[in-house]
């Protein structure tokens, strides 16, 4: 009974409410590294994620439920299982991987067409900026055709998960948008 009342209060005040954020992108883009950068502020050694990681973190008084989904071709079809009730999508792109920009673009636009994601904000990380030969944020933006996006708050941020650059900036923007649009 106690838990029932507490959950009732939670709802009334929106206290324990969690915002669902998805981190997507092709395999090897750095999604898991970004997730743990956000969570524990450190670089962890990762293996290809077969399935998903999920962490709950509190950021500016908001509880975020951040899902990092595996990017392998075999797992991509199952992304859709996670779309429901998503506040925002973080799409991570490996800026050095010029060959697969087209694939990334295709996956991104395919995903954004989903009905369930119509209200979700989009943040793109042009990751791996620490690597030589990385495309700049604007170049990635062009490759991904981001300008074509209508009716959606989106932003692209150059980042390096290893060095921890750009991650907080990106998230700050995302939180602002979510607060403004959805709360």
């Amino acid at each position: 009974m106690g838990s029932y009342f507490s959950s009732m209060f939670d709802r009334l005040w929106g206290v324990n409410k969690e915002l669902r954020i998805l981190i997507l992108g092709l395999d090897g883009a750095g999604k898991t590294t970004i997730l743990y950068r956000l969570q524990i502020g450190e670089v962890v050694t990762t293996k290809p994620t077969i399935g998903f990681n999920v962490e709950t973190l509190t950021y500016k008084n908001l509880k975020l439920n951040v899902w990092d989904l595996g990017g392998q071709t075999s797992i991509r079809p199952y992304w859709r299982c996670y779309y429901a009730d998503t506040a925002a999508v973080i799409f991570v792109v490996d800026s050095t991987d010029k060959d697969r920009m087209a694939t990334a673009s295709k996956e991104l636009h395919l995903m954004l067409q989903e009905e369930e994601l119509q209200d979700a904000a989009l943040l793109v990380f042009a990751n791996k900026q620490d690597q030589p030969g990385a495309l700049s944020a604007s170049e990635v933006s062009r490759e991904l055709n981001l300008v074509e996006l209508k009716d959606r708050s989106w932003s692209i941020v150059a980042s390096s998960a290893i060095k921890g650059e750009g991650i907080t900036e990106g998230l700050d923007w995302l939180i602002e948008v979510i607060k403004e649009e959805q709360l």
Partner: protein
Amino acid sequence: MPPLDKRIKKFLKNSIRIAPKISDKGELAELRTGLVSQYPQTRKDAIKKTIQQMTVGKDVSTLFPDVLKNMATNDIEQKKLVYLYVMNYAETHPELCILAVNTFVTDAQDPNPLIRCMAIRTMSMIRVEKILEYIEIPLRRTLQDDNPYVRKTAVICVAKLFQLNKELCIELGVLEDLKSSLDDENPMVVANATASLAEINDMDPSIVDLKSLIQLHVKQFLAVLNECTEWARITILGALSEYSARDGLEAQDIIDRVTAHLQHVNPAVVLATIKVVIKNLPQTDFNPNSLIMKKLSSALVSLMSSPPEMQYVALKNIRIILEKYPEILSKELRIFYIKFNDPLYVKLEKIDILIRLVDKGNLKQCSLLLTELKEYSMEFEPEFVSRAIQGLSQLGIKFSGEKFLQKVLDILIELIDRDQNSIKDDCCIAMCNILRHLPENTDMASQICSILNAWESPDEYLRTDVAKCNYVWLLGQYPENFPSLKAKVNIFLELFNQEESLTQTSILITVVRLHSKLPGSTLQSVLEKATKETTELDVRDMAIMYWRCLSMDDSEELVEELCKIIPPHLETTIDQFSPDLLEKLLLELGTISSIYFKPQANRRTRDVSYENVVKGKEINELQDLAKNELASKANEEVLLDFGDDDEEDEDELDGDNLTSVRTNKKYSALDDLDDLFNFGTTTGKPKSFKDDIGISQGINELNLRPSVDSNSRSQSNTQELLDLF
């Protein structure tokens, strides 16, 4: 900024929904919204409800992806529930299981040992090929875990992996880890590793050399035996029973170390201990009065105070042990007396044990038992009464004194006089058996025959094949005691076509024996019926044989000679194991083999589990399986003893019945295989053994051989099938 009304709606949706809403989409949709709720508590409640639905048998498999999302959580209760769900439904969503892999791998490194253990257990339980690719790292890690609780689970997982994918298991080399777990300091880990290795050995004996492993680790086993749980004890005792001691001293030591467990509350532990003791007993210098025998005896007695199901198992095992050590329970006859509230299956076994147990040199004991059996045969349960009557004759023949047998006979006559038609079958068989034991006793023969002769229409009183067969045999054996012989024979002759094979054979033999006393037309008609109208091959063969004999020049002498053969005395009607079978069974006490009296090697349980795994197998693998199957069948057939003596011995007959049933089964198994591999290809093999023409041809070829068994035929079919591959 979204429009105001949208924001209000959203606010209402998120904040005011307090009680779970009854939506019109149905329960599943409701659960789904709960599972993906933004509130942790709601999600947990929804999981609980889902599991609840699952346990009452509703199909909630469609929620699989949504439940899976809740797998990564710090709440151990929730994790356990989700794991439970995943185990149950993984097979319905094999492709989605891959989403769980990462969580499994992460959980296998969780600081909490409970979670590590749960993760590896669930992961190895999911029978999905894709998941197995990722099992290596977590499995290896948990096998080396610091926590024994995790290790003991991981060693079992190796066996599970082996069952699901043998090649992978060998490739990963986890079997080596498993073997080294036998040296673990924790008793549970040792026990589970033993169980796991035993399982693997059962599935494929060529992979691990279990025997030598056991030889090497006996010290460990004995050391941990006292510290582990009862189930682990059973496993370890099982392993110990496979160990053959080097000398009498070691055997004695093992016996001394395990005897304490004879008093365990768990009957399985007791039986396993008995198994170890019996295995080592022959190597020590023991005598029937030694302390260990007394301990064994009291352990067996204590099993008799367990619930009826356990008693049944105990009785079956006692039956095996008694054959090896008949004197073991000789003072405990009383506890096997039947209680009024025993279930039927226990009662039947008890009678069997009682008769085996009774000391045939002790008249007092035998008489007591006789009165007891008489009581039983007046009960109301038909099977029980039937077994008791059978027991009467068994006891009589065991004791073997004429006076005593007369007493038995008096009881039987008394029973018949009570005018219950249902027991006439059994009484008839029992009396015939007594006569087979004492063929020279004319008094008894005339007494019995006069009773049976008084039956106007024996075919109405007697129902079973065996009983009728006995009756007809008696007609042939003591024709002078039957004043209305011709009438009786005619009754049976008229019904010839309706009788089963035993009775048909018996009629045939009896008429041939009595051909000088009966009109010639009777012989003619029985031979005609037996050759033309019957579907029983053995009967037909026998009739053909007689016919040939009769058509020979010196037919009179030949037939005379055939009929004059006196069968040996019936010494016992208590069935016994062959020494080979007995030794095998003694090693499998307390297992299911001891219930069916069929050693593991002869059973087909493993094939069943193969079938489960068979799904994705290549066709040539299947063919290999089938070949092995057929080869083992062929071996089995050589072992089968097709006794070719006639209906003289009732037990022999039972044996024959059994074999013929088994042969039929074999036919169908072969048949199935045949179907399996025909695949509608051009080589549609004719099933000659099902073909009547084929059979009669076969008989023509076999010509005059008496009692052409189906043995040779089925073997040739097996050969044909083998050639097919």
